[in-house]
């Protein structure tokens, strides 16, 4: 199996994760590995638990059972800011931005983790802290150019078009310099042309050495960029493999076309 070749070097290991909200089991005994440097697609019908999986990994929710290892370290149930410090960041399904702040301000805040500024220095504007602020701004501008937002620099996020907002959302996730990036439906509600731009961006991010996990409903686009795909249905993993294998997998077709799924 080709898939085994890839899983030699896992960056993220998910072991028997379970998440229940009251009586509702959203993730059920889910285990898989994410390999260093791959683009892993996650697909599944609505309500399959894809976004909840991201929420559990990034610390928004604590899993009911199971463990998550990131680079060999146990990160189960850590607070979001700890998970980000460890090197995992995420984008959101709907545009979660700072509506009244400009693009540049967004990215400066996203770099917040990497600027060590002494409190008094920034309070009185010493030359050292000003130099650091300049350096942060330069980095933010670099990131802005990387995602192609240089023309939108001073516009507030609420005035950006939908496609640019999406790019900004991804840029925000890149700010803390993650090693693993989780993208939640980066292509939803985008025009084909803009979708290609985002796909190119995802490839560019991977080429920089960042491992990417993508949730997406747009199969055609997803299969084009993914190295591997995992299919979830009702909180369980029903298939895992190369895009070409998934396309012809009977279980997957059944889940999507509404066949009987035994739970």
């Amino acid at each position: 199996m080709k898939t085994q070749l890839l899983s030699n070097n896992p960056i993220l290991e998910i072991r028997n994760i379970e998440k229940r909200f009251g009586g509702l089991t959203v993730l059920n005994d889910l285990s898989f590995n994410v390999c260093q440097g791959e683009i892993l697609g996650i697909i599944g019908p609505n309500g399959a638990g894809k976004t909840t999986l991201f929420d559990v990994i990034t610390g928004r929710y604590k899993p009911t059972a199971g463990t998550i290892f990131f680079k060999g370290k146990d990160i189960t149930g850590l607070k979001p800011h700890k998970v980000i410090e460890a090197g995992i960041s995420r984008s959101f399904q709907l545009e979660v931005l700072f509506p009244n702040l400009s693009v540049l301000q967004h990215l400066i805040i996203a770099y917040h983790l990497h600027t060590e500024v002494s409190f008094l220095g920034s309070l009185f504007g010493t030359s050292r802290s000003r130099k650091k602020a300049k350096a942060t701004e330069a980095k933010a501008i670099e990131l802005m150019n990387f995602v192609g937002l240089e023309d939108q620099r001073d516009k507030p996020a609420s005035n950006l078009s939908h496609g640019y907002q999406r790019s900004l959302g991804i840029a925000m996730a890149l700010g803390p310099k993650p090693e693993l990036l989780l993208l939640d439906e980066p292509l939803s509600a985008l025009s084909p042309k803009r979708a290609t731009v985002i796909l190119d961006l995802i490839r560019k991010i991977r080429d920089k050495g960042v491992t990417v996990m993508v949730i997406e409903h747009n199969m055609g686009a997803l299969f084009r960029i993914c190295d591997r795909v995992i299919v979830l249905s009702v909180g369980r993993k029903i298939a895992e493999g190369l895009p070409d294998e998934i396309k012809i997998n009977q279980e997957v077709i059944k889940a999507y076309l509404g066949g009987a799924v035994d739970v």
Partner: protein
Amino acid sequence: MKDRNLRTKCIGVLAATVISFLIPGFTQSPYWMHIFINIWISIIVTASLRFIINMGEWSFAHVPLMGMGAYTSALLVMKLGLSFWLALPLAALITAVISIVIYLPCLPTTGTFFFFSSYAFGEVMRLCWIKFKDPFGGPAGLILIPPPNPIHIPGFSSIKFGYLSKIPYYYLSLVCMLFSLFLLYRLEKSRLGSIAEAIRESNLLSQFVGIKVWRYKMVILVIGSAFAGIAGSIYAHYTTLIMPVDFYWGLGVYIIIYATVGGTRHFAGPIVGVILFVFLRELLRPIVMYVPLVYGLILAITLTFMPEGLTGLTEKFFDRSKKGELAKAEGTNEDATAF
């Protein structure tokens, strides 16, 4: 363009500072001095409340915390015999510490719930002053709080604070206000300010860019409360008597009205609001029973027609020409990138 804007701003601030220092040269009537002292103290309270509001949470415990500063300072001077000049920073410090206790249970809540839980805990503190007669004096409060100790400057006659002359108080409150405004302004321009903005705009995204939302919220609340403590301390030694009823919830509402009508998005907002409303109250002296009605009407009109407040309005006015250009540029931009 930006530099010119900055220079006009600097000149404006400098001119306002010089004028405020020269006011006692024009009038020394106790009436006007009292009004101005009132304004300076109110500006400290309102500006520090705006510092908290900037983070997205409206605190109703701010005025009781100012009261805490007043009580702390008065008790330190009366019971422990400390000098006012030591009690002032200590009052700020102790108020900041107490604000941790007050805000800790409020912190899990946001929005309306934060507003009301902070009201509840502020009120608990106020009721403690009524309940515990021993240090706080019960409903009658504390009387005969000594005025600040005289300042001796070698070569000049010493500056005495007392009931007869309000001018030393005028300069005391003015200097404290300018000092507070300077610190608050620097804080807002520092990294803490941009983190506060991020938390206000989106709590969720702030968490996921790695901001420790809880900790920063607490830091901002504590710093804001320290300034309320400073204001309270000056207030106590100026009026020389404080009662629990001085810090009731209604005053909190007034402070919020000052900030809202002045505009909370702009640093000058609370200053404009306070000056406007204090003078308005003096104008309305003949119909004093209708003051809350007038305030309420002004608040309603502000919220309906200029939700950004008065300072937001001027910004809109000045930016109109600039915005027109921007809209034009945007138009062409949209065409080029239309998907």
